[in-house]
């Protein structure tokens, strides 16, 4: 599976770089991350809780950062496995300075998946991974904004990353969004709601 995309952060490249390379910040970017530890110079180990449609479980794995050219680019190579299957992949991340102190991130990579994740999750994985990346980068951007603001005002700014539940809800919303674009689905949803209402009324009368 190919993964590619871009994202614009509201902060200068140096700040983005430092945060991207901070395991604690990265961990908050993908809620569900149970731990992320630096085990070598450029090597992290950790566990993350993932839910893709009917498939849920903990993945444990490692992430290696290589070809580092601060603050411009690096290569990420990772693999993880757990009860729902395995993930293996590598990708490049590039940061470009933009006007107004903004930074454009471009990423692309190739990911292999296997096990239940592939055989049952295939249909959802594209949407879920896009959504997770988008949500994660959004969270990172909030952290960056907080840091930029702190720097500007030279004081500590309170920043709370979203909880795992909030994150999962946002991903689920993205997935439903794909479906909701179809008119038929809307009508179906309305029909289902109507049926539920009828049942409730019937039950309360009965």
């Amino acid at each position, binding site marked *: 599976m190919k993964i590619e995309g871009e994202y614009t952060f509201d902060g200068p490249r140096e700040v983005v770089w430092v945060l991207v390379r901070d395991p604690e910040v990265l961990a908050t970017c993908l809620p569900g991350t149970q731990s992320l530890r630096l085990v070598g110079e450029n090597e992290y180990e950790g566990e993350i809780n993932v839910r893709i449609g009917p498939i849920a479980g903990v993945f444990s794995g490692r992430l290696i950062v290589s070809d580092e050219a601060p603050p411009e680019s690096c290569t990420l190579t990772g693999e993880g496995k757990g*009860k729902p299957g395995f993930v293996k992949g590598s990708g490049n991340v590039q940061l470009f300075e933009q006007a107004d102190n903004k930074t454009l991130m471009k990423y692309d990579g190739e990911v*292999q998946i296997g096990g*239940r994740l592939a*055989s*049952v999750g*295939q*249909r959802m994985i594209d949407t879920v991974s896009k959504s997770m990346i988008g949500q994660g980068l959004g969270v990172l951007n909030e952290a960056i904004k907080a840091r930029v603001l702190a720097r500007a005002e030279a004081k500590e700014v309170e920043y709370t990353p979203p909880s795992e539940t909030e994150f999962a809800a946002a991903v689920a919303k993205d997935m439903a969004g794909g479906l909701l674009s179809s008119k038929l689905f809307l009508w179906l949803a309305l029909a289902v709601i109507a049926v539920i209402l009828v049942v409730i009324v019937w039950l309360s009368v009965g």
Partner: protein
Amino acid sequence: MTKKFIGKRVKRNEDPRLLTGQALFVDDVEIPGMLHAAFLRSDYAHARLLSIDVSAARQRPGVVAVFTAEDMGEDWQPGPPLVSPPPTAKDVIFHSRRQVPLVKDKVRHAGEAIAVVIAESRYIAEDAVEDILVELEPLEAVSDLEKSLQEGSTLVHDDLESNLAAHLIQKKGDYEAAREKADLVITRRIVTDRGAAAAMENRGIVAHWDEKSQHLTVWDTTQAPIPIRNGLAARLGLSANQVRVIAPFVGGGFGPKMMMFYPEEMLIPWASMKLSRPIKWIEDRRENFYATTQERGQNHDVELALSRDGHILGLKDVFLHDTGAYDPYGLTIPLNTQCHLMGPYDIENFTSEVSVVFTNKTLVTPVRGAGRPQGIFIIERLLDIAAKELGIDQVEIRKRNLIPPEAFPYEHKIIDQAFAPLVLDSGNYWPVMKKALDMIGYDQFVKEEQPRLRAEGKYVGIGITPFIESTGVGPYEGARVTVEASGKVFVATGVGTQGQGHFTTFAQIVAEQLGVAVSDVRIVTGDTTEFHWGTGTFASRGAVVAGNAIHASASIVRQKVLKLACKILETPEEELELECGLVRVADTPHKSISLGELALLANPLRGAVEPGTEPGLEATAYFGPQYGATAFGTHAMIIEIDPETMMIAIKRYITVEDCGTVLNPLILEGQIHGGVSMGIGNAYYEKLHFDENGQLLNASFADYLIPSATEMPRIEVGHVETTSPLNELGTKGVGEAGTIPVPALFSQAIENALYNRELEILETPLSPNRLFELLVNEEKSR
């Protein structure tokens, strides 16, 4: 002589039990103290097994045992070959690599079993599977057929030089010379891909080793209980009579439940003996997608040489056949493909070269059709292309090439799946095709209705596809027929039953001979204690081979009945008739004796019997055909395509079958309906999507779509009977006939419906998505 029972629309004897939930299936077997098994399967398609730690699983409360390949010791060996290897002829390469009970060194396909947990319940067993720590080193996997044969490709079997499993060339006449003379040579690449059999019931097995009686009983969803019994006895060091294999009612066989010696089929009985406890394993649907065999992946490079008037001068086909990670089923499927590449046509010059390829995918063994749909798809696609290029009507070009009736038996001069010369025993093809044309109103549709509907902007198309089906292959089947003192008849035969209506058609054959009601004939199939000679239900052979064995046994019993009745009624045999459970004198019907009374007299408690007399009214007989009987048929359909969604509505569906003597039209039609449903899946819905790493991407019915009632058309079935000279009943098989021509038929009808597009379909299965893609590509290339 007119028949009283054969050929009648008799309702099925087995249905009351099946419809009221009284029929035994493997999962219904409950034995006190029974344990349950679950398997640890590989997520990787190709990986080296580095280490495995089952200690935590063994400690889980309720777990009785965990076995790995290591724990099996000397008992760990690859499964037996399932068919005879090809003859060691010149130019034939065959590397036999059989599936293993549990992975020892290397995983060769996703879903391969690595360890088995035996526990007090399936829940505990499943949990304990997750306790196992297994270290696998992922290896590059081979999935694509062509890539797997390239120099330097990863090897599925490290001890081989390449992924080539087998290679075989078959030649008839001189294709190259024919090509020289041709006015038109069509060259194409045609690809067929994988599907699942998707039987309603997954596999299952219950094994019960009784230490005290030293007896092993196995309930197995197999199509071939006798070979399984023999193989289990040999593997487990038991005498064959210590092993009883029962194939009870089975919810669909379709090939993958043949005598497979699946890892689970060997392991559960083995573990039952180790633990002296009954053990049950029922496959779940996801396991079925990974661990039950599949079929139909082939890449063909074909050439068809024709004269200007549409006569086929020669056919050349070079193809790759995907056998998956192992090849226990030898060359059966590619040989079937070769034997059907020429379809029902008279082709003098033929060359076919097959390379069988190992890939890191689930094993390939026959699935209803078994190589035949691929052969028919190729020749029918080529004829459609030829018809367009030569400006000949698609029916006319076929008619010109059909084997004429006077040419039978037609010797094809190539070998069949049994390595015997391919001979088409009998046939009269044009009347069958003509009947299909008449039933669908071909001329009227093409001349009047289609132009009218097209003018209304509708995309309506018609297809008509003839096909052959080799059926009823040997070696033999047998049966024992007994008239009981109650006057009812008991029949035991070795083949298993998976919904074919054996309890009715076999009963009709017996009733025809013995003059009893069909409902008074009780049939037992697939229980090795009742009958232990035979092979099994596959290759559309039940009605032909077992049917004729039953006919032979019943005929002998009839002779015994007449001989005894002749003495008792003091009437010559010629004047006796068997009617309504009685033997009676034809002219004086009140002078009679019932079969039950005769059975008692044939088994006296006192007195002397003549030397050489056998007790009872019973006979055992066998039937083995000289070679397989070849059936013929034609399917025709009218479709309408929704140009927005590419969904296809089937407006009419006609099949005309010539499978020789029809035993029961009702059951025959049921077989056809089921076959067509599977064919529609093969043609337009069902495709197993593997990625380049051998990962199956649609292993659930949410993503792997099988036709449901809403996709099924009303099917009109016509019958023509050209009896086979190879057996007394004159029957040919029909079990796979419904499936074989459907992908070819769909392609033809789709192209016909989309008449204003330059669409050429060279692949199967299709789907609404895929058809849309093909049309987008067609638009781009314009």
